[in-house]
């Protein structure tokens, strides 16, 4: 199984523990994760304003 991993901007910069645990769990479950360079912003910090 290969899945694309969407990190957004907050997790890789501010909440790295989520990313770390997600990657470790995926590895244990045999899920291969693909990093997509263009997966950068979900707009969350601006969400309440848009």
């Amino acid at each position, binding site marked *: 199984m290969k899945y694309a991993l969407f990190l957004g901007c907050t997790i890789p910069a501010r909440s790295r523990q989520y990313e770390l645990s997600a990657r470790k769990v995926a590895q244990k479950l045999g899920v291969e994760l693909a990093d997509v360079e263009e997966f950068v912003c979900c707009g969350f910090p601006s*969400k309440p304003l848009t």
Partner: protein
Amino acid sequence: MADIDLTKADASFRKELLAQPGGEKLSACFTCKTCTASCPVSAVNARFSPFRIIRMALFGLKKEVLESDFVWFCSSCYACQERCPQGVCITDFMTLLKNMAIKAGHAPAGIKAQRDLIRGQGRIYAIDEFDNKKRNKIDLPSLPTTCEVVKVLFPES
């Protein structure tokens, strides 16, 4: 709020709104104020009132609505839209007004700053070499510090 001068109203604003997603059912509003009564922002700040914004828009007060800062107080919680007995998509209407305000050049400084951040680096929380160093320390891969494709979404204005 000061008295409203309807002689300066723009009658075409109403048609403009009704033709766009979020504004279609606007004329169904019968001013019951359920939206304002449901609004958590109105509860703490009387300057913000969804029903008044709808009324002002329907009267054609384009300049007052788009240039005011109170449109930006909406937290997009959808409480008003859920409860509107007339099925007016109030939260979607607020989004429409915000989009129109940005197009007219009236975005607040904070929004402009976030747009420039995303246009520049692709992210609001930018990743730099320092962040990548910290990521590598806990065995996370380095991430690119810029994103060219995002610029397509933000033509220079």
